[in-house]
């Protein structure tokens, strides 16, 4: 019996040999092409961004871009191209979003990983993931037609377009991201460590906050930084509900404009091809890209630096 199976395998091997040799040679090549395509696409996008940004800065001085406090590209006689109002709008939205998303997201993560029974977790996690799958345009109209009117009941002077409402809704949008990634990080902390703490008379809350949270810190920080970068890049919600008034302000009740919503505004046809305004969206896009790139690098650095090995 043993001999015959050995023989069968040998026969099969011989038959397949020529074919498998070709497969072994071709497959890595195809897979390499797949990898190269994504790298090339990224390089192509970055290249376009850089070229068009250079064109923009041949028409507008870099100094004005970084020092002027005004962003009025549509003034025909004397347009101003100072990026700060758009950055402040973006950071304002991001700040509000994080104030909403971090406490709720972390709270949800701690609940799911430390308190929830398996049954509850199996129900809540998919719901959270559905929340992550809602198109952002829906969130945008949720902000404009539901959250803003509710807020106007509290703050009567609040204009229809403001930073507060889309900020809160961007926060709601990224709760599942923080909750889900942080929960993954916390669930992967071994149970033996929890038992060690419980065995010393720690309450479940003390175990969660003083053992599990620090052990999962790198994963949690990475999730928060990724969420920040997501909030910075968020477009539809702020375009729909945030307004189109670039303003260097920290007042959350004012109408603002973010980098992304400026790009949308121009792309929708307010400026012709080849004009300075047209090129400005690339400069803004480049700025945005640098922000998210830095955030992602920070996330990577942090998750390496603060890892508590277990």
């Amino acid at each position, binding site marked *: 019996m043993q001999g015959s199976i050995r023989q069968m395998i040998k026969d099969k091997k011989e038959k397949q040999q020529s074919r498998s040799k070709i497969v072994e040679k071709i497959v890595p090549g195809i897979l390499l092409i797949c990898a190269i395509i994504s790298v090339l696409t990224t390089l192509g996008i970055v290249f376009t961004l850089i070229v068009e940004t250079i064109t923009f800065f041949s028409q507008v001085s870099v100094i004005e871009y970084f020092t002027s406090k005004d962003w009025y590209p549509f003034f025909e006689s004397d347009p101003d191209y100072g990026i700060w109002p758009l950055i402040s709008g973006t950071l304002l939205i991001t700040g509000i979003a994080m104030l909403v998303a971090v406490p709720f997201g972390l709270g949800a993560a701690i609940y799911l990983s430390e308190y929830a*029974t398996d049954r509850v977790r199996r129900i809540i996690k998919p719901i959270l993931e559905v929340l992550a799958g809602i198109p952002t345009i829906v969130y945008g109209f949720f902000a404009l037609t539901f959250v803003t009117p509710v807020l106007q009941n509290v703050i009567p002077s609040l204009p229809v377009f403001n930073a507060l409402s889309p900020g809160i809704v961007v926060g709601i949008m990224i709760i599942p991201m923080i909750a889900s990634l942080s929960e993954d990080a916390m669930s992967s902390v*071994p149970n*033996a*460590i929890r*038992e*060690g*703490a*419980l*065995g*010393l*008379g*720690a*309450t479940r809350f*003390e175990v969660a906050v*003083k*053992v599990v949270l*620090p*052990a999962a810190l790198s994963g949690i920080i990475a999730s928060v930084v990724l969420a920040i970068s997501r909030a910075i890049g968020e477009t539809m919600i702020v375009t729909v509900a945030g307004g189109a008034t670039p303003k260097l302000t920290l007042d959350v009740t004012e109408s603002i404009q973010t980098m992304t919503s400026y790009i949308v505004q121009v792309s929708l046809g307010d400026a012709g091809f080849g004009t300075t305004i047209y090129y400005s969206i690339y400069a803004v896009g480049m700025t945005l890209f640098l922000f998210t790139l830095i955030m992602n690098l920070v996330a990577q650095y942090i998750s390496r630096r603060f890892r*508590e*090995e*277990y």
Partner: protein
Amino acid sequence: MKTIMDEKKVVKAPRPEEKKKEVNTVYSIENFNLWYGKDQALKDIKFDIPEKQVTAIIGPSGCGKSTFIKALNRMVEMVPIVRMSGDINYRGKNIFENKYKVEDLRTKVGMVFQKPNPFPKSIYENVVYGPKIHGIKNKKILDEIVEKSLKGAALWEEVKDRLNENAYGLSGGQQQRLCIARCLAIEPDVILMDEPTSALDPISTLKVEELVQELKKEFSIIIVTHNMQQAARISDKTAFFLNGEVVEYSDTNQLFSNPSDKRTEDYITGRFG
């Protein structure tokens, strides 16, 4: 058998003076039953565990010895499908009573686990974790606790110069002694040990065994072990568990030299298990 007997004599030598002491009871277990879902893991357990002695729990795999020791600090409740009946009295109070706070119990009854499970923190932070959650914040007192606990766990000399290094850089045996030090830091009354040497090499095992002999001067120790020689070497009392029941419970001396139950004899002479 002969080797067990020989080793026992060495350990038992200082016994007579102990016998003069009056022996208090730390745990008194009364008709305790435990089920995992429909499977009964512990059946009608009934015996008393003495203070400041080493009580060994032996028996083959799956006999319920780990379940039993985890019931003593209610760690077994971590398993959601567990059901229990009967009483476990710790210092005269039933630990399953509603008003009994499980955190209070575990503060007095420390536990050392099968695999070393230090926190992913520095050696220092591992030891002070217990005192800190129980409200001790004074840096000077904490420093003293660290030195005392690590000395108590016979680890101080090896780690005193690297207290701020991560505990995961220690060897398995050192990690286990760190876990013992972590336990000692809150000065418990009882220390439960669930096969504390099963993941250690022989030299580390020896160190932990010597440590147990030291610790019983101050603490009551209940140790689950797979290793009968170990039970014979280090314990004063031994309970033999089989299929969730206590077959025999007596002085270690008695149990190993003159077991009263045929099944105990079969087990300790290596006929099964």
